[in-house]
């Protein structure tokens, strides 16, 4: 088989059927951008939730009866033994007072002894969904006087996280199916107009492989073009939208993931999907016409 000729035919076909090629690339670009944007939005929301979760700490106050710092530190082992505890940082009453004075006006603390502060542990959890249960387990430890935990915040975060995860997963799965359907149908439409050409090829003795290869080459090229254009467009749109968003909500917690952090995986996925859809779409579209 003359590979050079077949490859040239693939390229020639793109320019000859320029309108359908344009339509195919446009559909691939549109579908990839919609899929990619929803995925990137979902990643950003998840990151934001994780950051907010990480700020949600539990404070474990040590019983005043344990005045000795060394004895208070001994509680760390028992605290860390609780399942959901990710880290426990000891803060002595001296340190707690310094922190307080650093945070507020130092003059407020004039004449006040550090004994008004308790030794404490700052706890971070593995999963805030189990905050309530963890709080009870911490309270049950001997030597723990009180546990401060924002259970209402935790519940809200967990609810938001679950909703976002489910909604984005459903959206992405739906978009993947819809996109594949639209893209393969566009390619089918593009090849429908060429069924006569295929029938002639068959009648003059062309093998199925000979007929198929230019379509595969054409599909690959269109898929790669679609993937590349979608990647560049996604990059531009993402930077534009994230720039405006951050610019308009300055001073908030909003911290958008830079596109370059996901540029390589996005590029690989876009090219992969483009090539897969293009090549398989091309082969699939002409399958029926090869049965003559």
């Amino acid at each position, binding site marked *: *088989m*003359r590979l050079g*000729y077949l490859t040239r035919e693939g390229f020639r076909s793109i320019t*000859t059927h320029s309108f359908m090629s344009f339509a195919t690339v446009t559909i691939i670009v549109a579908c990839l951008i919609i899929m990619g944007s929803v995925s990137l939005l979902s990643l950003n929301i998840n990151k934001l939730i994780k950051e907010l979760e990480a700020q949600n700490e539990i404070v474990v106050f040590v019983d005043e009866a344990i005045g000795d710092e060394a004895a208070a530190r001994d509680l760390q082992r028992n605290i860390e033994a609780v399942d959901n505890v990710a880290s426990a940082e000891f803060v002595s009453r001296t340190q707690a007072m310094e922190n307080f004075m650093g945070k507020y006006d130092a003059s407020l603390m004039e004449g006040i002894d550090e004994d008004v502060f308790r030794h404490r542990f700052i706890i971070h959890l593995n999963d805030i969904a189990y905050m309530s249960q963890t709080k009870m387990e911490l309270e049950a430890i001997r030597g723990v006087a009180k546990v401060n935990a924002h259970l209402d915040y935790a519940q809200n975060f967990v609810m938001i996280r679950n909703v976002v995860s489910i909604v984005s997963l459903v959206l992405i799965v739906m978009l993947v199916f819809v996109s594949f359907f639209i893209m393969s149908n566009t390619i089918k439409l593009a090849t429908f107009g060429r069924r*006569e*050409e295929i*029938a*002639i*090829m*068959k*009648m*003059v*003795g*062309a*093998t*199925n492989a*000979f007929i198929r290869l230019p379509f595969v080459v054409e599909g690959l090229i269109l898929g790669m073009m679609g993937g590349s254009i979608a990647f560049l467009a996604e990059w531009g749109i993402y930077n534009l939208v994230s720039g405006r968003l951050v610019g308009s909500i300055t001073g908030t917690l909003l911290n958008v993931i830079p596109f370059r952090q996901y540029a390589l995986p996005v590029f690989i996925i876009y090219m992969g999907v483009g090539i897969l859809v293009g090549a398989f779409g091309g082969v699939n579209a002409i399958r029926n016409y090869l049965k*003559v």
Partner: protein
Amino acid sequence: MVYMQNVRKVYESSNTVALDNVSLTIEDGEFVFLVGPSGSGKTTLMKLITGEVRPTSGKVVVNDFDMGTIKRRKLPKMRRTLGVVFQDYRLIENMNVYDNVAFAMRVVGAPNSEIKTRVPYILELVGLEGREKRMPGELSGGEQQRVGIARALVNSPRMIVADEPTGNLDPARSLELMLLLEKINEMGTTVVVVTHEKELVNAFSKRVITIDCGEKTGDSVEGGYYDL
């Protein structure tokens, strides 16, 4: 060579008997008219020859290939021994005359050097020299059919099968085209022309096989007149 013995073809989707108990032999080098009214089974007979359909029963052998048992992957090899000419020309609209003919050679993997010498020779043979760069839309019906014949001929097939080749042409162009097919036959290629044009058939003293209602109703080996 075409050999058919007790051939029956039933289209299962519509339960139509297109051919029933047809037996015939066409030897290498013959010129044969296959005639009959519309719906008589001529096209089905032609499709059996080109491998587009398979017989329901009976035996069909075309250029040494058994068409009843031939594997799908062997069909291209069989089709390369045939040249098919269609009523509606079936040229590729976005290819010029030269490429429409060269395309048939590229399909069979012919080297470029051979294509460059063979295509101009065939175009001259069918009277299309100087029209290589024309697109199909710029040609008359007769010229387009000549391109179709050139494409069918370019790979030196053992047999040319023409399905109503003059169906879209005026009488003068039809006669010219038939003379061209006769010339090709004189060069040694078997020619089978499917037609229902009585005057044209009668103008040539050739063998005439008549098909009617799916059955072979006549085989005038001495050539000549047919009347339906």
